Each structure stands twice: as structure tokens, then as C-alpha cells.
């Protein structure tokens, strides 16, 4: 199989990904031509406002979107294999073994009727052919490694007996127990207390370093991506609008939406002269069930020109590896000043 051949190039290469839903109100295109790549061992951030399609992008990589949805696109290459062409059986062999997921809600993402140990053991029994005893020992060990004290005892407990932070630790342990190559983490810290968030994030990154997994980290928290990601994709209304290294995105954001997002991050020490009020982007996300001519951001864009409402912008490289979907990418600061 192709997975045995050492594979140079990206671990994950998503091209032209679309996700369509049929709803009672009509068709909805939740993801609209997303290109995205993750290199082996890399931590990649996927950020954007609520509803921009982050979760659907993530779920369609492991082909777990709601049955009413359809995944389309050129390809989703994982270790060189096109996941869009795989049968359900082969796909199942990858899930939990080479591609794992961590979800937002640690409360509801664990089965209330199965013990933590059973749930952690399941992937080992399934993918590595261990018996339940052996898997149980590994599960306890893994639980210890994610910083849960008295792991043996905890294995026998049920999700409701653990705190939210503990549960998310258990989720992470479960996702990494088969040493996957890719971890899809959909807002892994959003539902947690602020104090616990940092611990969980640190834990994830530490384990990632130990296991060598690449991470696609979905979040709407720019602080989280700034701390942990090598590269960032910014999504808006189902599209990637900017892509670049963390340094590039934070240092020289080249899409008006990214600039808006940055300004809406509260700062501890606002630069002198700036208003101390949190500046959020005015307006709302456009509806995805109607055709959107022109730039999807134009109704909210401070840099918009007349052509923006009719002519959809192409993706342009501002510098190698730094792309922006804006007519004025690279010239925002020289062209029209923000109104």
C-alpha cells in the first residue's frame, strides 16, 4: 500500500474541497473550494468566525459529515492516497489509526455508558488487534501520559465522573493512542475554562512532539493559533481568504478580513492612541444559500472598491507561501486607505 512508501511532500493535500447540504430551504454550500495542505509534523491553524465552514472542512477530511451533505472537490490526498476515491472500508481503516479527531464538547463526545478504559481501548483492539486486557493496560498508561492521576482507577470510571478538563485529556489520549499521523482538533479547548485551556493546548503540543503527529487545529481564538501554529489558514464564508506562516499572518496580514479579525482580539496593553474598545468587524456573515457574486467579504470590507461587488477575487501570492484572496492583496497599505 502507498502508506508503506516513505512519502515526500505534504501529509495532507486538500484541493478544491466543497461541501454541499440539501436543506428544506434549499441547497447550501458550506465549504466552497478550499485548498489546504499540512506537512508531516506541522501544526496548522484554521481560523474564522462561527459558521464559516471550519468544522465541515475538518469533518470532510475524515468523511464524517452529516449524511445529508455531499463532499466534492479535486482531491483530498493523505499520504498520497486520494481519500475521495477510497471505499468506506479503507476509509475506516484510516480513521482512528492514521487520522484522529478531537471534538469541541468533551461532555457529549464521550459515551456516557462506557467506561473511560473501554473507550480508550477500542481503537487499539480495532486497529492493532490487541485483546481487551492488553489494550486496557495501554489505555491506563496513555491516560497517565495525558496527566490524569490514578490512571488505572480512572479507567474504570465513566465520563460523568470526570471534570471537563479531564474528559478532554481523555479525548486527546484516545485520539493519539494509535499514534496517528494527523490529528484533526476541532476547537479542542473552546468549551473549557480559560485556565484549563492553556494546559490542554500545551499537552496537545507536547504529545504531538512525542508522537510526531501533524495537527490541524480549528479555532476561532487567534491567541491560540499565535501560540501554537506553524502556519495559518483564515476562512471566511466557506472559502480560505488568507494563508501564510504565523509570522506572516500576524506580522503582515494581507486580507482585509484577517486585519479585521486581528483588531477584534482584545489586547492587554493597547498601543498608544488606539481606542481601548474591542473593535469587531461590522456587519454579518453572508448567507450561504444564495449565490454570492463578487468578493464574499465586500459588504463588510473597509477597503472595498466598486469592482469588489461583481468580480470575485483570485487567490494571489503576496510572497512565497503567503496567499490572499483579495483584488488588492499586497497593495492594501498603498492603495485606498480604509474608509
Amino acid at each position, binding site marked *: 500500500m502507498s502508506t508503506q512508501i516513505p512519502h515526500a511532500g505534504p501529509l495532507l493535500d486538500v484541493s478544491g474541497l466543497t461541501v454541499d447540504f440539501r436543506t428544506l430551504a434549499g441547497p447550501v454550500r458550506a465549504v466552497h473550494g478550499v485548498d489546504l495542505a499540512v506537512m508531516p509534523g506541522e501544526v496548522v491553524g484554521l481560523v474564522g468566525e462561527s459558521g464559516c465552514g471550519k468544522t465541515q472542512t475538518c469533518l470532510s477530511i*475524515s468523511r464524517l459529515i452529516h449524511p445529508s451533505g455531499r463532499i466534492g472537490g479535486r482531491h483530498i490526498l493523505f499520504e498520497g492516497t486520494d481519500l475521495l476515491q477510497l471505499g468506506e472500508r479503507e476509509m475506516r481503516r484510516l480513521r*482512528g489509526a492514521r487520522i484522529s479527531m478531537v471534538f469541541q464538547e468533551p461532555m*457529549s463526545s*464521550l459515551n456516557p455508558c462506557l*467506561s473511560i478504559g473501554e473507550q480508550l481501548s*477500542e481503537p487499539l483492539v480495532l486497529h492493532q488487534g490487541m485483546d481487551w486486557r492488553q489494550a486496557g493496560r495501554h489505555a491506563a498508561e496513555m491516560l497517565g501520559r495525558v496527566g490524569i492521576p490514578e490512571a488505572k482507577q480512572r479507567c474504570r470510571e465513566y465520563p460523568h465522573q470526570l471534570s471537563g478538563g479531564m474528559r478532554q485529556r481523555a479525548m486527546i489520549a484516545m485520539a493519539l493512542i494509535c499514534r496517528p499521523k494527523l490529528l484533526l482538533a476541532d476547537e479542542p479547548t473552546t468549551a473549557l475554562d480559560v485556565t484549563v485551556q492553556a494546559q490542554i493546548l500545551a499537552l496537545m503540543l507536547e504529545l504531538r512532539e512525542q508522537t510526531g503527529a501533524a495537527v490541524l487545529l480549528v479555532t476561532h481564538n487567534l491567541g491560540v493559533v499565535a501560540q501554537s501554529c506553524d502556519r495559518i489558514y483564515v476562512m471566511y464564508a466557506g472559502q480560505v481568504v488568507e494563508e501564510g506562516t504565523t509570522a506572516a499572518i500576524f506580522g503582515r496580514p494581507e486580507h482585509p478580513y484577517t486585519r479585521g479579525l486581528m483588531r477584534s482580539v482584545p489586547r492587554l496593553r493597547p498601543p498608544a492612541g488606539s481606542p481601548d474598545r474591542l473593535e469587531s468587524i461590522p456587519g454579518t456573515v453572508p448567507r450561504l444559500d444564495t449565490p454570492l457574486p463578487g468578493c464574499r467579504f465586500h459588504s463588510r470590507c473597509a477597503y472595498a472598491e466598486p469592482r469588489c461587488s461583481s468580480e470575485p477575487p483570485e487567490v494571489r501570492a503576496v510572497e512565497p507561501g503567503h496567499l490572499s484572496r483579495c483584488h488588492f492583496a499586497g497593495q492594501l497599505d498603498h492603495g485606498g486607505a480604509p474608509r
Partner: protein
Amino acid sequence: MNAYLSYTIRRLVLTVPILWGVFTVTFILFFIVPGDPARLIMGQHRDPAMQAAMQKQWGLDQPKHVQYWGFLKKMVVLDFGRSFTTKREVTQSILQRLPATAVLGLPSLTLGLLLGVAAGLWSAMRANRAVDNTIRFVTFSLVSIPFFLLAICLQWLFGQHLRILPISGYINGPWGWLHLVLPVFAMTLGSFAGLTRLTRTAVLEVLTEDYIRTAKAKGLPELVVVVRHALRNAMIPLVTNLSVSVAGALTGAFFVEAVFAWPGIGLLAVDAINNRDFPVIMGTVMFGAVLFVIADIVGDLLTACVDPRVALK
């Protein structure tokens, strides 16, 4: 295990007032409904002297509160007195007919449960497809048709029309079990339909839960996801409502035994009601109440087994 035992004991103690309530209501109902059992037994030949003598013999001439206490006191030691019509000990009659009812009820409840859960699961896994629509149509029809009508239709189809099965009664002998087929079938259909619908709804609800997505993300095959992760959670409302299913089965037994002339406790009760045979009515009602209460306790114990979040208090 200790928690289970002490819980059971506490619940059993709590059933005493429930049973007392059932007794009181039955007693009141019996005397509200007009009609004198002695008069009924004599039929056409009315003889006031004999009627009075019978009433005296059964204690029906005494003030109501005296009768009430008399019955209640004897009932505590499971003595319901003798039947007005057959003169036999009520407790004896019930025990004697218990096997007939059990031989009908246990297989049909078990079959109904197994088939109902399986069909409900299948239906939920193929939601809104042909299989599901068929199962839903059939079970909906079964639930909507009055039970006795269904039983009579079965009698007509297999007994009159196809002439392959006996339509009623209970006969010992090598082919005696054939008499079981139609009544068991009728009763199974009844519990099957209800349980299929319950299971389908419960499984469909559970399938939308986040932990089902987690299970799929582990790479588990659909059947494992449904059986290990969904069915277990979907069983919670089912076992919690075990007493409701048992109550349904009891009502079913009542009709089935009457229609198929099956000499079980249901038929005993039907005959007793027709004859206004108070001791037998009370005996069978209390028997049903005890069964119901036990099912309720067992249901709670099972819920605590299945759902780790439930602690027995």
C-alpha cells in the same frame, strides 16, 4: 450489589401502600357498579329468600366497612376467600392457572422483545428508506388496530380459512402445543409493534449524539457503532419503561385469553367480571398489580445497571 438489595427492599416496602390503594379502588368500583352477584347466579328463577341466604353466606349483607376490613385482613395473608361461582379457593385457582398464562406470556414477551428491538434497530439504521417505511407502516397498523380484532382476524385466517391451526382452547397431548401458536403469535405481535416503535425512536435520537461521531471517528464499523454505542444508550428509556411494556402485555393477555378461550388468569378474570365474582376479581387484580410493581422495580434495577449515571437511592 448491596445497593441493589437494599434498594429492592425499600421499594418493596413502598409497594404496600400502592397495593392497598389498588385494593381500595377495586373494592369501591365493585360496589359502585350496580348488579347483585347473587341475583346474577340465580338467573331467571328469582327467589328472594335464596338470594338473601347467598348474600349472607358471602358476607354481602354486612355493612360496607365491615366487609372492607374483613377482606383487607384476609388479603394480608394472601387469602382472597372462595369464588362465588365455583366455590374454589381464589389463591388456588390463580396458582393453578398461572402455568397456562406463563406459557403464553413468557414466550411472547421474549419474542416480542427480541424481534421488536431488532426491527427497531434495523429500522433506525435504514431511516426513511424502504425497509424503515415498511416496518413503520406495519407496526403503526398493528398499534392502531384494536387487539381483539387482530386476534379474531388471526383466528379467521388460520383457523377458518386456511384451516391449519386450532383456533381456541388448551388440550394436553402430542399436538397440544399447536393451540399455543395463534395466541402466542397474537400477543407477540402486540408487544413487537410497540417495542419496535420505541426502539426506533430511541436509537434515532441517540444516533445524533456527539459520541456516535466520536465512535465513527475511531473507525468502528457501522454495526459496532450502532450496537455498542447506540443501542446501549437507547435501551435506557426502554428498560426504564419496562413496567409499561409489562402492563401492555398484561392487557394483551386479558384479550388474547378471552378470544382464544385460553384457560389462564386473564380468562379467569374475564369470567369473574362477567359473574361479578368479587373474590376472584380482587385476586386477579391484585395479581396484576403485584406483577406490575415487580416489573417497575426490575426496570429501575436494570436502568441502574445500564446507565452508570444513575445511582440507586
